[in-house]
């Protein structure tokens, strides 16, 4: 196969979980999810009210893919984030590099999604995933 698999090791998962749980605290979010662009859940943190996390992952990736398509029509490289506001829930979806998506789910009554915290988390996650990608590409090249 020409495109290397995305291999997540336990130590990387722990680093990601640390970033996600920090974001849960800072935003007082109910759930923070890291999803790959193919619509598969990488890992999540918080007391998620969503039982069907696979559907959340698939639909979030679909939303990001459609938004990316819209950006390209307008000559933009990407719209890096999109927010949805409901009566009870806010959902904030942010691209993490070109491989993942960060989703923050928060109850409108008790929390507000802090853009600067999300941005900081995104940058750290991008760095973790960039190193993961480089390591995987190295593994693929060796085998």
């Amino acid at each position, binding site marked *: *196969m020409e495109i*290397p698999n*995305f291999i*997540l090791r*336990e130590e990387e*998962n722990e680093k990601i979980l640390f970033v996600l749980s920090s974001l849960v605290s800072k935003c007082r979010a109910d759930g923070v999810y890291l999803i790959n662009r*193919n619509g*598969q859940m990488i890992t999540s943190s918080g007391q998620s009210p969503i039982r069907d996390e696979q559907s959340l992952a698939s639909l979030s990736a679909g939303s990001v893919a459609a938004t990316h398509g819209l950006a390209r029509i307008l000559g933009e490289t990407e719209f890096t984030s999109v927010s949805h506001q409901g009566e009870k829930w806010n959902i904030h979806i942010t691209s993490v590099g070109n491989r993942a998506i960060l989703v923050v789910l928060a109850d409108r009554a008790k929390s507000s999604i802090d853009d600067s915290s999300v941005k900081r988390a995104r940058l750290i996650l991008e760095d973790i995933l960039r190193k993961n990608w480089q390591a995987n590409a190295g593994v693929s090249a060796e*085998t």
Partner: protein
Amino acid sequence: MSFINYANREINCKIVYYGPGLAGKTTNIVFIYDSVNPKSKGKLISLNTEMDRTLFFDFLPLDLGNIGGFKTRFHLYTVPGQVFYEASRKLILKGADGVVFVADSHPDRMDANLESMRDLKDNLKEYGYNILKIPYALQLNKRDLNPHLSVEELVKELKVAQEPIFEAVAVKGTGVPETLKAVAKQVLNVLKQDLV
């Protein structure tokens, strides 16, 4: 590109059902959903138009046992078949580990089959895939239609290499599990090689 998660010992793979509009891609997925043990499947999501035509995708997560101590989860997607949904099709194809092409056996749909096949090859190429290398199966659907093209006629036009080919009547489930098994087996074989 499969997602191999060592933290929870899980492998996620993506299989995309491709083909012209109304060829039976969604019917394949719905049959699989209806026939699989509830413990092995997630929720079926369909993003449809008001006329029940696929607007963006159908999505079905499916657990297919273990490989080397890893739980394997297959994510089945369909693409919208209508020509004007080109952009959506391309987005959904991204990251596919395997592809099923669902062809319509009706003689009037041959041009649509060929156009969709061209579209599939172009889109795969753009993502750096080679249709000759990616796990792939060809399904000749609607074999119960009258009239229908012969298997030889369809194969002559649509076969790309040595891929497994299945005759199907997706509304009755005929050929549906066989097609999925064939492409899933190829995906698992690639994974086994990668995991060694």
